[in-house]
């Protein structure tokens, strides 16, 4: 059963389309979505203002999806993390005992690293 799914989003156009698709899927499955944005530590700069803007953008993306989920009557939780995205996704997946990850095939994530760390009993949907 896919009752709790992690949706990984980035600051990109495919993320919005992926979120819309995920909300439709969640509606059908009656699943709860954990929307995760990871601020990549490597991309943080010494410019504090730039980092703060990056964080505000991340929250805006998360809240926009939350608002769409509310309209669609889908349960969501928002998670903003900092670090290496591949590691953080696995961390969230296991700590909240989620059933799988939904991710865009256009994501900038290191897929080989993510797939290498995926627990065998979890599902990954690459859309």
């Amino acid at each position, binding site marked *: 059963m896919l009752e709790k799914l992690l949706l990984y989003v980035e600051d990109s156009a495919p993320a919005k389309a992926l979120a819309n698709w995920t909300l439709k899927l969640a509606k059908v499955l009656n699943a709860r979505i954990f929307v995760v944005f990871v601020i990549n530590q490597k991309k943080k700069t010494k410019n504090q203002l730039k980092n703060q803007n990056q*964080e505000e953008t*991340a*929250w*805006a993306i998360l*809240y*926009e999806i939350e608002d769409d989920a509310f309209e669609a*009557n*889908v349960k969501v*939780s928002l998670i*903003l993390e900092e670090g290496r995205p591949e590691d953080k996704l696995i961390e969230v997946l296991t700590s909240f005992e989620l059933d799988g990850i939904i991710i865009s095939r256009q994501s900038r994530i290191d897929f080989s690293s993510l797939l290498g760390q995926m627990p065998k009993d979890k599902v990954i949907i690459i859309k």
Partner: protein
Amino acid sequence: MQKISELLSPAVVILELKSKEKLAAIRELASVLIEQGIINDTDEFFSAILKRENLESTGIGSGVAIPHARTKAVKDIVLAFGRSQAGVDFSSLDGKPSHLIFLIAAPEEKKSEYIITLARLSKILRNEEVRVKLNRAKTPQEILTIIAQNE
């Protein structure tokens, strides 16, 4: 686009919430907005806020909760702040009670301003130093000053 500190005023800051439970805390915060004449339909306001609370946790972790909704009950974006030393259970993902609670409501049609306000406030409150200062502030004006200095 108004700043967070411009949306707050000392009159909508409660330094110690009496309520120990989520819905009661939201009602207590809403009551200051009602007293200020900011909410034009109390039932509609609660209905919008509670509908969202039932669907998702507005506790963002680290002792912070931001209950929020878009509703016809307000004409502009409104904000109230309450602090609870004991903490209120907002079902945060980190399992911790919320000590700093910001209530936000926006008109239905102001979606982008509403999202930006939520994002900006969440960013400010993710800063541990800001949370410590807000927890220690002694007056409503001090709360406003801390927010203003960090946005």
